């Protein structure tokens, strides 16, 4: 689901500056006079594939045991070269919440005039695999570029279909050239090499 309108968007920015933990009650408003069309997907500027509700997203095991999604974010209606991206993922079934903020991500131009944040990594640093894998998560992404703002939301099925760990860094990457490597994971070990 992508929310945009063809006219200027008024975004109510609900903040808690200076307050303790709260329920997100309104604290003010910001008038964003321009909007961005934001789409979550996979791939890169040469080949971007949008994600739709219910699509599977592969959880990758990376360096030092970090788990992450590798996504891409396509933005239209901007000439900016960099974007700030905030992400929030919630897994209702297990209560997992992931939020992440990345500033000044490079935007790569695509042939259709859009720009893409390539290799956008969303890390699950605070949640065990059992609370992530096999679960559905709703992912919100908010992008800011060139003074404009836009967002997108999609529900993903988090999977780890490729459970193979690359013991030898010279071995062929298991799937789609995405490196799924790191220390041996007892819950996710592949066959011995």
């Amino acid at each position: 689901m992508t929310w945009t309108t063809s006219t200027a968007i008024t975004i109510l920015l609900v903040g808690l500056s200076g307050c303790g933990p709260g329920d997100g009650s309104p604290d003010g408003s910001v008038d964003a006079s321009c909007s961005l069309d934001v789409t979550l997907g996979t791939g890169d500027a040469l080949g971007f594939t949008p994600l739709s509700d219910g699509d599977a997203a592969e959880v990758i095991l990376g360096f030092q045991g970090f788990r992450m999604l590798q996504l891409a974010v396509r933005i239209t209606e901007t000439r900016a070269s960099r974007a700030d991206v905030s992400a929030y993922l919630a897994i209702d079934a297990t209560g997992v919440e992931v939020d992440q903020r990345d500033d000044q991500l490079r935007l790569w131009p695509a042939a259709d005039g859009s720009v893409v944040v390539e290799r956008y990594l969303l890390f699950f640093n605070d949640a065990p695999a059992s609370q992530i894998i096999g679960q559905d998560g709703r992912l919100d992404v908010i992008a800011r570029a060139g003074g404009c703002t836009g967002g997108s939301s999609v529900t993903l099925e988090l999977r780890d279909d490729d459970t193979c760990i690359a013991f030898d860094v010279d071995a062929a990457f298991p799937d789609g050239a995405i490196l799924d490597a790191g220390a041996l994971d007892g819950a996710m070990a592949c066959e011995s090499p």
Partner: protein
Amino acid sequence: MTALLAAVLLLIGCSDDVGALEPPRELRPVANPFGPEDPLWAPQPHREKPAAIVADPARGRVYVALTGTEEEPGRQIAVVDASSLSTLARVDVGPGPIAMAVHPGGRHLVVLNRFARHASVVDLDRLRVTAEIEVPFYCEAIAFDASGERALVGHRHGDRVVRWRVRAEGSRFEVDSEDAPELGPRAGLSVPANPRRIVALPGGGWLVTSETEMALTRLEADASRVAATYRPNAPVLDVAVVGAFAYVLHTGHGSGHPPADGFDGDGDGAPGDGTANVTFQDVQNEITVLSLPGLEPVHEYTSDSICCRDYRDVDPDRPDVGAELAPRDAWPAERVAFMPPRPTWIVAGAMPERAVPFRRADGSDALAVVFGGSSEVQTFDVDADGALAPRETAASGLHATGLGAVDAVEVDGRLLVVDRLSETLTAIELDGPPAAERVSAVVGDVGGGDFPATDVELGEAFNTVTAPFSVDGDQTCIHCHRDGTPIAKPVSMPLLDDPDNGVRLVMSYRGAYDTRPWFVEAAMDEQNFFPVINELARKENFCCEQRDPRVWSRYPTQEQCLADRALDGCRHVLECLDDPPPECADRGYGGETLTRDEHFRRAARRVLGRDTSFGDGLWSERLGPDGQIVRRPINLGFDGITRALGLFLLSRPRRLPNPNAVAPSALALRGEAIYHSSEAGCATCHPLPVTATARPTVATEAPGPTSFPYLVSPLRHPLTGADVDITNAAFLGTFPDARQDAGGLRVGVPAIRGSWDRERFFHHGAARTLHEALATPGHPALRSGEVGRNEREGQPNTHGGTSQLDAEDLDALVAFVETL
């Protein structure tokens, strides 16, 4: 610029003398580029940051230096009643009071002002400054001898000690400096970098500590020469003398390499670093006892948790368990031989900052150690042979202090501890058990709320009091990043492709706001620099993270259980939080909680008093039901704490005003022209003022980020010649901004501003001085023992064109870089 240069040269007559232009009395703080324009900015409460304390037993007082910060230096000392801890008065001194000493005559207190060229002499009867003594900038260490006729003052401007002859009679306090203060940084005897503590030896002579250059130096009584040096391969944090022994606080000899192969981390000429653990598990909290006067080690004590908290710790009782780990973490049984004897595992706190000798009620010698990283004090009994026996242990509990405990003094059987972050003094009864309630009093400023009161302060707290967040309770950020200036120690890092042989020099994080991306890999910033913090609390240590191979290799995989929940053991796999496998309780190592998130949040509640951010700088954003952007504070789990630390680093650049810049010598001015010349090319990659090709910010412009193939020779494997500077493939996959190809790692351009205060340069620390960093091999400007490192694989001038410079011109270039 050329006209200005010419005018200045005319003005000073082309003299090369330092201080040809008279330097100002005080240094002005460096402007902080992080301001309201940045969306992460929020107003911060004013803090005094008390940092030093001395006792005045005759008057029943203590004096506390209200040092402030680099951006907002304090200018006062607090006069405090030692019994009630109430502040009686404040005395105005100079900017950044950082060290003090009461003259043995009892009438005068000398206060060293970090950012001034004068020390303040306070008449303790009148409680006001009655004299000022000219000194170099950045004097940070002082001690009187027992007679009060001599004093030694250390300055980090020139890494030297200045000798005073003192005459104190009645209200008069006069100093004849044996080392001409007008020489500025060249005044005094050269000692290891950034001298921080000085102790006068009872029999004559002096001990001088260096954190940056990791050395303890003994000087002769007249301080005219170095008599002995002890180098523990770790920052020397403090030294205390009890009888015939010196007690040295440091952070462990290891460099994170294997003990008997790989990089010679301890510099003894043999492979390895001599310590059993590797990477961040090699960071310890140690006390070495040296005999005087020769500084020979006679006893060594280490962390009580050197084993077996982290899943990777070498375990002398189970030498075979190392083989059960993943290949990258595994250790061979032989490593147990490098573990120190178990009776020496007695240091129970983290980040030993201060050692204070005292006498117990029965008259026996004892030593109190203040731990800033765990907010604790531990006392030790000292026997006739200098050996230590702990009075308190982790099991019995240590004495609690406030946050940021950094200095202490003993008064009438109580230890008064300065809590730099909490803005308090804590009083500890030294002969009693740890108190149930901490006795403390405010000495600084908590008008803006008790610390921490903002998201920046959450990060600041974590930066110092990191230990409770680590699995073994041993490590803090400030073990290596001391006071913002890094120790001059190349260490192994997990991102290396060959961590046994590769190194990375500890990074400086002063000025972090406008020098992103950070680290030589140019791939991390405040949002994703979690690899280091990750090493302090790896997920393998928390059973339901399901990453411990010793446990989870016995059970089906997640995928198998999702396909068939009836498989044996699947309830543990899928419902671990409710039904952990029995092996979790029997492991004997790891965290107490089942998940890392709970570990961090529990530590946050204990240390910070909360487990969510305030929301003034750290928040999450999501889309509300009507398309609104809704913000909420973030949880202080691993990610939240990492972001808090990143916010602190952005908000507090902690840049030291450069004393060389305020009155540049003619040599430096000449060097500026060379810096900007196309022949040298320095400004191309190190453009002023940031001196790095960094990412632009809302407040600064910058051309980067940019990374380059090696400009200097990489470190190579001693046997195979392989490049050991490269990172591993997994790191590249996780940090896509890092670049590496067949030619090696592409290295980001680090900021060189602040080099005047640092030792060792380049990503591998191969250049020990700026001369070595800039000079081509054999350059005439190289001093005895120096090696020119401006070359790559024998090709000179790869790090700037300098071979064409004569010795004086290269000296000029160095002089200019030292003004940045």
